[in-house]
């Protein structure tokens, strides 16, 4: 269903345009350990729709590899918690030089890889170099290309020099797995430092992890974790109903939820996601070169009704590219809010009082056709005729993303902190505002996160007022789990699913 995620993940990185796929913020985790005793040696069965392509996140493994292995098998110098905070993990401490360009990391002592080897600074250097290597397909590659030099003065110290200031550097490091520099095969095997070791990966069906006895930190709360992969959401829900799996990492439709909501044997959580559905205008193509036309189209569409159609009572309206979990979030739903009268007025001012016609390139998988149908019917009310052109995800990549041969399109943007793409005039939607570009650059080179947040808030407001795109809605992140489970993550699940805190009652 969300082909796009894997798709963007792979293709964008192939184009060295890292559309960063990350976790999202929010708070809380799947229920506190409620009464009763839990089984320390339990097996937790996790149901997912995203099987990895391979086990290497620098070789196009897809989002499934992040879901299964990030934090569970592999660890970074830092970790992004389920509520969106950056915490130290394999880095015990770090210092930033006064110029903001040199980062000195001290590694945690006594960390062992699953193969038994000690973690050294060489492994960190090797791991960083893997991500920025020429053949790397990592989603973080372009963000980390600011790395100019990596030095290893001793076994526990790593010194990284950047070519320019990058306030997001530490945050970006949460996506870099520290792997054993002597590991031979990372596509079908692993050698990380996480609380689990890979037991077996049966392609097309399951991937199992076992608790690692030599783990440096607190041992995992369960003995074994098995990710079961399904092609079809209905089959996945049925597996949950028959206890074949204990938890579904991300539900794709609200309609199957009633069977779990009214059943005390299950818990349904509604967490924060970072996936936004966009009506992306080609800001270089007429008539969307005119800000008034973009505003008019945005104002003509009743986003709330669309969200209810697709997600029922779930999901949120955001009115901008920024989800609530990003630090620079502001509620901008009132900017270019639904107002057909204003839309007609704006169209008249732009010289389109008789309306116009445009082609909407629509990916052929859910929810795009539904959204396109809805947009067509909404815009018809203000005299704008929409021609829906359905295309495959490959075509989308070639026609829209690479060749920019489109007028408007629909697309899911899954990443957190991806507002910054509006600062890149070469991005597919062609939004080119010199001030915004400058703000985005200044934000990345800011000295403090407050300064960065302040600048990006300006970018957010400006792009929203300009209706650079029409942000239709923010997806919900729905996890359904057996009531026997607690301690599972409820937010960042599209890419990460930390399994080590999950407690299962016997």
């Amino acid at each position, binding site marked *: 269903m969300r082909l796009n995620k894997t798709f963007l993940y792979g293709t964008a990185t192939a184009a060295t345009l890292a559309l960063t796929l990350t976790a999202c913020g929010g708070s809380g985790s799947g229920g506190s350990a409620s009464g009763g005793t839990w089984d320390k040696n339990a097996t937790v069965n996790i149901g997912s729709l995203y099987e990895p392509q391979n086990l290497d996140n620098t070789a196009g493994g897809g989002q499934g590899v992040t879901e299964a292995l990030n934090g569970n098998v592999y660890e970074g110098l830092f970790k992004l918690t389920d509520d969106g905070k950056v915490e130290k993990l394999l880095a015990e401490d770090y210092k930033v030089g006064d110029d903001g360009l040199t980062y000195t990391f001290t590694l945690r002592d006594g960390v062992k890889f699953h193969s038994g080897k000690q973690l050294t600074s060489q492994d960190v250097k090797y791991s960083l170099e893997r991500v920025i290597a020429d053949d790397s397909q990592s989603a973080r590659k372009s963000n980390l290309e600011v790395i100019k030099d990596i030095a290893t003065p001793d076994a526990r110290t790593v010194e990284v020099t950047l070519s320019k200031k990058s306030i997001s550097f530490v945050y970006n490091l949460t996506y870099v797995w520290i792997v054993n520099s002597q590991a031979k095969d990372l596509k079908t095997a692993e050698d990380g430092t996480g609380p689990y070791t890979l037991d077996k990966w049966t392609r097309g069906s399951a991937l199992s992890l076992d608790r690692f006895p030599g783990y440096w930190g607190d041992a995992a709360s369960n003995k074994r974790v098995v990710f079961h992969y399904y092609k079809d*959401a*209905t089959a996945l829900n049925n597996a949950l109903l028959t206890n074949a799996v204990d938890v579904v990492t991300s539900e*794709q*439709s609200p*309609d*199957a939820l*009633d*069977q779990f909501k009214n059943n005390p044997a299950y818990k349904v959580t509604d967490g924060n996601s970072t996936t936004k559905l966009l009506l992306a205008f080609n800001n270089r193509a007429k008539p969307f070169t005119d800000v008034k036309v973009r505003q008019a189209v945005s104002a003509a569409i009743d986003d709330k*009704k669309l969200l*209810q*159609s*697709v997600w*029922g009572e779930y999901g949120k309206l955001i009115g901008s590219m920024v989800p609530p979990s990003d630090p620079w979030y502001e509620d901008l739903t009132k900017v270019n809010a639904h107002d057909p009268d204003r839309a007609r007025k704006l169209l008249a001012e732009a010289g389109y009082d008789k309306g116009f016609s445009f082609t909407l390139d*629509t990916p*052929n*998988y*859910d929810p795009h*056709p*539904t959204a*396109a*149908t*809805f947009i*067509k*019917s909404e815009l*018809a009310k203000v005299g704008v005729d929409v021609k*829906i*052109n*359905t*295309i*495959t995800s490959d*075509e989308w990549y070639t026609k829209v993303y690479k060749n920019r041969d489109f007028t408007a399109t629909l697309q899911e943007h899954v990443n957190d902190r991806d507002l910054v793409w509006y600062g890149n005039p070469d991005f597919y939607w062609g939004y080119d505002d010199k001030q915004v570009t400058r703000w985005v650059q200044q934000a990345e080179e800011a000295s403090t996160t407050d300064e960065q947040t302040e600048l990006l808030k300006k970018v957010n407001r400006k792009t929203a007022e300009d209706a650079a795109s029409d942000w239709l809605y923010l997806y919900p992140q729905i996890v359904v789990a057996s009531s026997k489970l607690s301690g599972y993550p409820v937010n960042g699940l599209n890419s990460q699913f930390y399994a080590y805190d999950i407690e299962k009652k016997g």
Partner: protein
Amino acid sequence: MTRTDVLRPVRDEKAPPRGRQPRGSATLVTGCVLAGLIALLALVSLFWLPYPADDTSGGRLAGPGGGHLLGTDKLGRDLFTQVMTGSRIAVQAGLGSVLIAAAIGVTLGVLTAFAQGWLDDTLAAFLDILIAFPTLLLAMLIVAARSATLGSAVLAIGLAQSAVVARLVRVLVKRVLAQDYITAARTSGTSWPRTVAGHVLPNIWPTLVVNLALQFGLAVLAEAGLSYLGLGAPPPNASWGRMLQEAQATFTTAPAGALAPGILLVLLVIGVNLIADGLRDTLDPATRGRRA
């Protein structure tokens, strides 16, 4: 003296000969009723629909009743309206594909029937290869080369089916060409085009029509399949295949969205298959002989 000894007819002229015909016509009538029902829906949809096609005022997944005969879909559009539009698209797809298949298939079939020796073998193999190529795959190629419209889908299905029709026509024509009356026609100086038009086609058309009726049903299914994959008529056109796809996620909570197009699809395909069956019983002398 009035004549009282009027001869009674041997049998009622209207009574069918005993045996096969009642069966044939019953099948034909049932088929016509089923397919006719859908055709009627399609016809009516040209002039009248319960709701405008893009009216989203119905509320999300409303159940049947309350102004909406079958309920509404996720966007609040009336399902019966969509089903009616869908029947039009299904009939269009069936007719369009069969016309293309017949035009190309018959021409190609007649021409290849005249081939001899190695050319004959090559052409036969070529047709077999074309048939072995999955319809859906060919359709996806054509849709990819052009764009996802009903026209592309119909063209693709028609092209794929023309190979099947061509092979059938080739065999039928070859069989007829071996008959004595063809030799007679030729020796009496009738030109080849006239022989084909006057002697060959009239002798193959019963079998051909039956086959085309079957192809109609297959074309309707293929179009639904393509639309299900998002490669048929683009939204907001309510093709049955698209409706099935959209209703899939909500099947357990709002089954009408999938049941309605599903049942109509089945009815139409059964309908045309029964028509084909009935036509074969009525038209095809070969099977009539066997059945009698």
